[in-house]
């Protein structure tokens, strides 16, 4: 398939997942923010923005600025509207490759972005709607596209972004002075019920973080997402299986995953920020490596002579 199309698919996967993750995070934090006194609300909003990767322009930002930056700002790739707009634009460019139902659901989502009230209450509904729409896009791409190379690129982008988003989700734990309760963190990832059923009696921050970080069976955990990404990379380039990794991206993702899996610690909570930093870096580097390997285009048009 065309490199340009592969790149678009990779980014559709990333942006859709980003919108989903941001909506989940915003939903949970909004609940907390609403109950805070104003100065604290400002401070927390600012930090939250930082974790989500957008630098606030002015120092004192209020709730509506936060909503604008994370939900409705169409010009920023870190907001929900921006991510969904970018996903739709990429789908438009790769329209003949994605199935028409995937394109239509992204397109309809894009047209639906403006149909929400932009106050706090409206944002709850908006987040819920985004979670639903992105689930629909994921479901349609899984059931209506052949699981060939193009789909692998989509899933690769999705998995890397998911690992990144879960890492951010866990980082937001420290944003609140009292720490975001583990219940909320799990709700954020939709992992509450799974966690309860797995862990039975042992509740606590440590266990919750462990679950979202290391659980091998829960699809939104970092280890699970990273091993999904690894699988895609192997599928995309099945040639080297005997020794080592020729592929940069596979190596980076594999290292990050094994580091988490084999790391032994007594106090996971104090190491959490460091881990999260590492995962996010790995995701960014892996993404770059994928671009270099598969999407590299000549920087500009050049004439390659008659005979060469």
């Amino acid at each position, binding site marked *: *398939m*065309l490199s340009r199309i592969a790149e678009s698919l990779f980014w559709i996967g990333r942006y859709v997942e980003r919108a989903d993750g941001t909506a989940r995070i915003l939903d949970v934090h909004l609940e907390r923010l609403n109950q805070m006194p104003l100065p604290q609300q400002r401070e927390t909003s600012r930090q939250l923005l930082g974790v989500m990767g957008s630098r606030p322009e002015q120092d004192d930002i209020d709730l509506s600025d936060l909503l604008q930056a994370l939900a409705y700002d169409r010009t920023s790739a870190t907001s929900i509207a921006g991510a969904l707009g970018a996903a739709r634009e990429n789908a*438009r460019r790769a*329209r003949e490759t994605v199935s*028409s139902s995937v394109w239509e659901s992204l397109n309809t989502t894009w047209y639906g972005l403006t149909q929400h009230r932009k106050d706090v209450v409206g944002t709850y509904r908006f987040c819920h709607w985004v979670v639903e729409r992105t689930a629909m896009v994921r479901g349609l791409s899984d059931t209506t596209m052949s699981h060939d190379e193009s789909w692998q690129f989509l899933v690769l982008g999705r998995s890397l972004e998911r690992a990144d988003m879960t890492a951010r989700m866990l980082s937001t734990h420290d944003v609140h002075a009292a720490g975001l309760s583990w219940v909320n963190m799990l709700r954020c990832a939709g992992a509450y019920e799974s966690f309860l059923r797995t862990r039975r009696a042992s509740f606590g921050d440590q266990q919750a973080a462990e679950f979202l970080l290391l659980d091998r069976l829960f699809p939104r955990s970092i280890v699970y997402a990273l091993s999904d990404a690894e699988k895609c990379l192997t599928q995309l380039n099945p040639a080297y299986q005997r020794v080592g990794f020729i592929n940069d991206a596979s190596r980076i993702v594999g290292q990050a995953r094994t580091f988490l899996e084999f790391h032994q610690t007594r106090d996971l909570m104090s190491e959490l920020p460091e881990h999260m930093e590492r995962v996010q870096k790995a995701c960014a580097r892996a993404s770059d490596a994928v671009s270099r390997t598969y*999407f590299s285009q000549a920087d*500009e*048009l050049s004439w390659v002579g*008659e005979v060469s």
Partner: protein
Amino acid sequence: MSELFADYAAAARKTPAFDEMFDPGQFPRTEYGQVAAALDELNLADVTARADSMARTFLDRGVTFDFAGEERPFPLDIVPRVIAGSDWDVLERGVAQRVRALEAFLSDVYDKMAVVSDGVIPQRLITSSAHFHREVAGFAPAGGVRVHISGIDVVRDQQGTFRVLEDNVRVPSGVSYVLENRRAMAKGLPEAFGQQHIRPVEEYPRRLLAALRKTAPPGVEDPTVVVLTPGVFNSAYFEHTLLAGLMGVELVEGRDLICRGNRVYMRTTAGEQRVDVIYKRIDDEFLDPLQFRADSVLGCPGIVNAARAGMVTIANAVGNGVADDKLVYTYVPDLIRYYLGEEPIIANVDTYRLEEPDAREEVLDRLDELVVKPVDGSGGKGLVIGPDATRAELDVLRAKVLEDPRGWIAQPVLQLSTVPTMSGGQFSPRHVDLRPFAVNDGEEVWVLPGGLTRVAMKEGSLIVNSSQGGGSKDTWVVDGEVRGTAGDDGPRERPAVTVRERTSVWPIETNWQDKQSEQQQQ
């Protein structure tokens, strides 16, 4: 008729145009029988609801055109344009004939120019055409076809006779709307489909792909076809994606292509892959910065040389613009006689060649009665309709014509035929044209039954271009009513459908469903 047609007769009488749905006595013509019956059942609320749902579907599916950087849905009217099968058969032959003549003309122009030495058409007329490209003279394209895809615009005059308005053999667009309109109409006006046979349009992508593959460079076993688009900001981008998708081929941009050693490759995730046939949807001038505009980043350097070396087929061939020059258009009837030895099946619209002093004089006298068009324009650009123009506009036009007589033609104002169109809560007559599409694979010219009907949405307006507020109608070629079983050759034997009565269910208590209904009643 329904109340939606209440004022139709009065509105239709105001214009001398031929109405396609109603005869002068205001009775629906035979071919419109089914449509009239279906519309009769509807009231305003029905029509509005259906029109809204059709527009919404178009927006969701992204059936849009790009207008000034904004995506707009292409308005589709709920009343189809119907052409009787017998009328269509003539039109179809006429279009095919024209395409064959233009094909012969182009291969002659870029070769020996016998048409000039035989005195059919003056040489200066060809060489002065803005789209005559010496860069592609002197070689036969791989596959031997130049006009793979064409759109011949026809209109019906006041008598209802079809006439050719212009030829499009460069990059004719609009076929995607034909395909999408039919899908939308099947949902929007299902009542009109049942009782009659409407010739299907969905085989177009298959025909196109077959023709493109057939004209691949010789010796290529399994040709790779691509569609070359200028990119997502092009007004017809939707069409490019649709055609590439329906043909199952890659949609490439110039930057995806690379020419090396007179071969064309595309950059894929698995390295470079050879390309054999390029369905070109960008203008010649932007195709190859080596040959044409050096500042173009839409094309790919070296592509024309590859075509000259016979390593790649470009469809439509570079340089086709000389055949749809509007001044050459006036010679097409002569070209048909010259190359094919046949009489033209569809006539041209009477046209003044402003180069000829007598004609120019007459036209300049009657500028306010005529339509004046630039010879190399498309999409209605630069066209001036005399009766609608102001004094100042006419003066500007007069100066332009005197400065460059070769650049303009003049035609009488044609009252294009009208078809009922939803507007402001009722149906009223609106002017339409028709663009049938033809696919030429070198042996046979296939004409898509129907084609694109564009409609001017403003009352009395004669400009149907989408960029100037035009909409479209689904175009049906209808072969009379589907006959009942009595007249048929007898029912065909069909294998009976096996009925499988077993359905997998989760074992439930036998009285579960009964209970549920009881509960609901309570």
